[in-house]
């Protein structure tokens, strides 16, 4: 949980990551002025639908955005333990990657190198950062496999990725990421490619490891169910912007931004009468041409002329500390009531 007044571990301020598109179609503003804080020991969820900039945000933190075509704009700040990662020279940045901040990816099928054994791949980070000998690194890999709950780790350490199931591979990815006991784990859709029962196991594993190792987790997902069960605080992103931040309970009880509201309404509920599932009309606009004003206004049921004319800042909702929303409804709540 967030400890009020605790020092921030990872501070992201005004992050802008743009991509130059081919054939002069303009610049895709994938992440546009995103700010959030990650505190020690907490799980921060980042949610949003495809194309809203979640993954680019996570890649930007470790400077893994492919350049070209992408680039992080000057003026962006990613501060980890007082150092701006964006300004760090390459060798120092490599010392942070995998060691202090580690990352797991969406596709366990393609995120493992097919020509090396899983043991070799888990051992790699330990060899890079802790300069362990081959045999010590191997012992370490076996230990990590046991930690992430893979049976027969002594045998599995010599297996190749194609010999493992999807869930096992994701466990291996987690083992790779946690070898050096990082302070921050960025989990980019860690369960999207897995089936539901395996999803639950992997998320439980992450929760357990988080408590055992005392790390912070940045949980990136499009699945509100995952966020509800595992995150302490949530950042909702839409069209490259943060549209709402809140402690998880507050977000689910009092969603303030119409986009958040729409996302919650679109979750099928087992205890509700069976009706046609709610959907937010339209699609996320192209990142090369965000709409003027509030970027959600073309899809918003409450939008009025102010929303088209002027983009709202992140406004304090006022019900709970740390609950903010980028919506004019915060200042004019009566408009929402009148619509209903």
């Amino acid at each position, binding site marked *: 949980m967030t400890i009020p007044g605790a020092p921030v571990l990872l501070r992201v301020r005004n992050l802008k990551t743009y991509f130059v598109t081919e054939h002069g179609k303009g610049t895709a503003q994938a992440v546009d002025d995103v700010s959030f804080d990650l505190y020690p020991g907490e799980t921060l969820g980042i949610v949003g639908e495809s194309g809203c900039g979640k993954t680019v945000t996570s890649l930007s933190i470790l400077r893994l955005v492919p350049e070209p075509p992408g680039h992080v704009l000057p003026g962006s700040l990613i501060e980890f333990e007082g150092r701006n990662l964006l300004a760090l020279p390459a060798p120092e940045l*490599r010392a942070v990657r995998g060691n202090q901040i580690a990352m797991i*990816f969406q596709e366990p099928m393609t995120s493992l190198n097919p020509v090396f054994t899983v043991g070799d791949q888990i051992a790699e980070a330990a060899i890079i950062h802790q300069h362990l000998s081959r045999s010590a690194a191997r012992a370490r890999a076996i230990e990590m496999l046991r930690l992430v709950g893979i049976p027969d780790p002594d045998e599995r350490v010599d297996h190749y990725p194609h010999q493992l199931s999807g869930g096992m591979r994701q466990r291996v990815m987690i083992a790779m990421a946690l070898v050096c006991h990082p302070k921050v784990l960025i989990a980019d859709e860690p369960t999207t490619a897995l089936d539901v029962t395996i999803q639950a196991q992997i998320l439980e594993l992450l929760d357990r490891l988080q408590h055992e190792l005392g790390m912070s987790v940045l949980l990136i997902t499009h699945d509100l169910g995952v966020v509800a069960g595992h995150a302490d605080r949530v950042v909702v992103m839409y069209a490259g912007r943060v549209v709402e931040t809140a402690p998880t309970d507050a977000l689910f009880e009092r969603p303030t931004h119409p986009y958040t509201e729409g996302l919650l309404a679109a979750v099928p509920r087992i205890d509700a009468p069976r009706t046609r599932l709610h959907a937010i009309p339209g699609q996320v606009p192209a990142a090369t041409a965000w709409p003027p004003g509030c970027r959600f206004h073309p899809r918003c049921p409450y939008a009025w002329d102010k929303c088209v004319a002027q983009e709202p800042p992140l406004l304090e909702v006022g019900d709970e500390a740390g609950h903010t929303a980028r919506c004019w409804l915060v200042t004019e709540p009566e408009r929402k009531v009148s619509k209903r």
Partner: protein
Amino acid sequence: MTLGTWLALFVALVVTAEIVRVLRHRAMRHERWRRFFRHRTTTWGLGILTFLVIVALAAPLVAPYDPDKQLDIVHLKNHPPSWTFLLGTDVLSRDVWSRTVYGARVSLGIGALGALVAVALGTLVGAVAGYYQRWIDAVLMRGVDVGLALPRIFILLMAVALWDGLPFAALIIVIGLTSWFGTSRLVRAEVLSLRQRDFVVAARALGAGSGRVIFRHVLPNAAAPIIVSAALGVGNVLLLEASLSFLGIGVKPPEPTWGNMIADNAPSIYTAPWSTLFPGLAISLVVLSLNAVADGVRDALDPRAEAA
């Protein structure tokens, strides 16, 4: 041919058969190497290459005569194949079989080493260009374009003219330096697609540096096309050496290579066809075998076949 040489030849054949049998037996345990032996031509290619390498290594045992010795310039000139001279004698009354066997040492040596230099250089340039992209890629690939555009024989002729009688090592280096362009393009294309793969991003996220990413994560995954291009490269270098020797600017006579054997005996090709036929046959056999083996290696290392 003496009894000793026949015996040596027989032993070489038996050893070859045994090596191929053992390799095949071992391969059956691994899915991917079983695919290697799936085609009969691959097995034959491997057998022929093994046999030629053994014969080349055991040249003093297998060759009955000194390859450079003119046995009897008056009576034994252009002697047709017989039990005494298995493949006949050439225009200077030298034993064609002995020369072919010793020539295998030089020809195969130049082929293998030249291809090694070429593939190593091509892989390095291709990997650097494909991984770093931008101006490095542009500069290197325009260089490759220039290299591909220049006729290779022309460059080699220039080198020979400057050097005046190339030593063996220099010949290998010059051949290697002019044979890597194709490989570098191949490797670059492979690296371009591999560097986008998730596991490469994952490796970088773990803190791996560029060198580590290239040599541990990218290149091993490009092994199949690299090995295939190496195998085909040996054949190409062999042909190049043959044509250089044919032009009289390769290995200096009387040192036998398959190329200069053909060159020496080309004038008597109608009267004594055996003295050009057999070295020519040897070259064709090696190139064909290498192609067959390269096919097998490609099948064995193709990751798409892995799933099947």
